[in-house]
């Protein structure tokens, strides 16, 4: 029978059973996940995939059988997707992020964080000075609803009411305000990060703008002699929230840095390299904003005392700082590993067996 066939048909007939078996395993892996394969199936998947890729390479040279080439192309592509599926669990990804990836990325972005902090401080000073020169600057910088009825025209008692208002009476109003502020700052953070790609400038401007708003608020309240009450009111969530904006902005600066100073790489490659850390910064900023939203929604009205507010707010800030400074200080080799993003390049096969076993 086999002499009947031409060479490429013989090639196909000899291997067809293996391909069918590979197809079965791949279909199973696609439906239920590689993790659910038995040990034999996982082992065969790896071996048969390599063989199929090898056959594809040979078939492209010797065979003109379109049916075969199309089939092998699709089969190898599907098997590739099954073999090189991410092997990490979700919990593993999250743990890696918090234990190593994120604090290390933060420590590598020291200069960018400083620059972004500088932009914010610049804004605060500017806002303060503006208010001292002429309080009407308030209206040109602060959008109507963000002030929540506060402004140079409000009485000191009104300002204090906002700061120490009990939750019950102004509950729904506060909830709405909380969500607004939350989304306002989230938007600022997103813009700070994503616009950083345009050579840092928009991020810098946004950070300064945010600083000006803060400076105006501070100047207004200190002017009335209730500055520390505002600081307490802001601290409880503001430490986390402003830190988040600084971090998002630093992420933007890293992207912008790659665009301005690509070094020996092309801009696209340098962007990808810096994007690795920048993305971690952005995710951290998002998480911190979420925490800030929770602090603002629940704790700000629960904790009425100024000192406690200061302690809680700055205490949480200190915790963030300690985590960033201390976490993920493993061996140098490990750190270098992380920097290269070496986790991505573990071959699927080597770990498949372990998983199945």
């Amino acid at each position, binding site marked *: 029978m086999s002499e009947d*066939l*031409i060479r490429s048909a013989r090639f196909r*007939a000899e291997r067809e059973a293996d391909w069918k078996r590979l197809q079965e395993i791949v279909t199973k892996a696609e439906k239920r996940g590689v993790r659910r394969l038995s040990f034999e199936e996982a082992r065969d998947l790896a071996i048969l995939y390599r063989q199929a890729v090898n056959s594809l390479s040979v078939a492209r040279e010797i065979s*003109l059988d379109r049916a075969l080439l199309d089939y092998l192309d*699709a089969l190898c592509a*599907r098997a590739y997707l099954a073999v090189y599926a991410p*092997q990490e669990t979700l919990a593993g990804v999250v743990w890696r992020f918090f234990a190593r990836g994120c604090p290390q990325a933060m420590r590598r972005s020291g200069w960018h964080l400083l620059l972004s902090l500088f932009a914010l401080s610049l804004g605060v000073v500017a806002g303060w000075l503006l208010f001292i020169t002429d309080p009407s600057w308030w209206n040109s910088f602060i959008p109507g609803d963000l002030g929540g009825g506060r402004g140079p025209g409000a009485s000191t008692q009104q300002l204090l009411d906002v700061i120490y208002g009990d939750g019950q009476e102004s509950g*729904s109003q506060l909830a709405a305000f909380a969500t607004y502020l939350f989304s306002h700052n989230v938007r600022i953070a997103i813009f700070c990060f994503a616009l950083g790609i345009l050579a840092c400038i928009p991020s810098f401007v946004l950070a300064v703008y945010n600083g000006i708003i803060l400076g105006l608020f501070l100047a207004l309240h200190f002017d009335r002699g209730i500055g520390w009450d505002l600081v307490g009111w802001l601290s409880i969530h503001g430490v986390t929230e402003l830190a988040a904006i600084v971090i998002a902005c630093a992420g933007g600066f890293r992207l912008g840095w790659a665009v301005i100073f690509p070094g020996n790489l092309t801009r696209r490659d340098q962007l990808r390299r810096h994007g690795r850390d920048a993305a971690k910064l952005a995710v951290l900023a998002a998480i911190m904003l979420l925490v800030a*939203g929770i602090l603002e929604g629940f704790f700000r009205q629960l904790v009425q005392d100024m000192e406690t507010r200061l302690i809680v707010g700055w205490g949480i800030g200190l915790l963030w700082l300690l985590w960033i400074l201390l976490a993920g200080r493993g061996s140098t080799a490990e750190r270098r590993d992380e920097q290269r993003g070496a986790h991505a390049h573990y071959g699927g096969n080597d770990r498949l067996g372990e998983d199945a076993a």
Partner: protein
Amino acid sequence: MTDATTTPNGASPAPPKQSRRQRRRQRPSKVTSRRMMPEHLLPDFIPPEGVPLRFTVAGVGARLGAQLTDILITAGFVLGIILLVLLLRVELGDGWSILFSILFLFIRAPYYILTELLWNGQTLGKKITGLRVISATGGSLEAHSVVVRNLMKEMEIFVPGTYLIMAPTLDGLTYVIVLLWIAILLIVPLTNKRRQRMGDMVANTVVIHHPRAVMAPDLTAKVPAHSETAERYPFQSHQLDHYGRYELQTLERVLQAGPPYSGPDAKRRHEQSLQTIMGKILAKIDYPEKVPEADALAFLQAFYKAQRAYLESRRLFGDAREDKFHKEENGKAE
């Protein structure tokens, strides 16, 4: 100086004419080879095994479809939860705004990140439309890439989308800026071969159609060497010198199309096209005998086998024939 610039100009008329003629001669083969290449093939995708794999890049339309499906699914999910809360008559009070903001936050970037991480580059919408995100490097899809492409999605889809919904409340200038923004974002994927949006470029990912593997039978197996068909239609090597890979595979496609047929009409049309093809081949290769039209299928099967065996063996000797113009091309090369 002026002399140097004018002389080539004066002498130029002859060479362009020649090159145009050359171009005309090349044109047919170029057209056929372009026709053979499926249009949106992912270029240079090489897995660690070193053998290039072929993936079909998903077009902008398919991806918009998947995106819309995802938005519908997530919006339905939020509606479902709200209905559930209403049906169970849970007193939420202030909780509503918190529930809303958490749900709306979740169905943006987090939903896409989680689903693409858990299902190897497929959200529910992509599963339904048969798309998948893969890493353009040929390695496995990293958590980092998934996060980056979906964070950028925030800038590329959700923020302009929200502005578009708010359109009636926007002033003229903002409206124009938003429209410009959306136009640029839609154009970016059309300007590169991999149809990457900006998030894909930064994350180094590509969206592809999930491949489907269907094994069609080997046509040569239908004509055993010492069978009646093979002996009834012998071919000489000079008769097999006319065609190349393209014609062979076109013939294969036609032969694979039949039976089973979808209806009597399809059967008639297929038989007709087989007869037409047979007529053309008989004329081209100058086949000495007459073949009755009813035997078109058997003849073409025999011809296919003989032609493929011949072309494949030529190929092994380094003479890969792309199409029926191979003689002209070889002649030109010599």
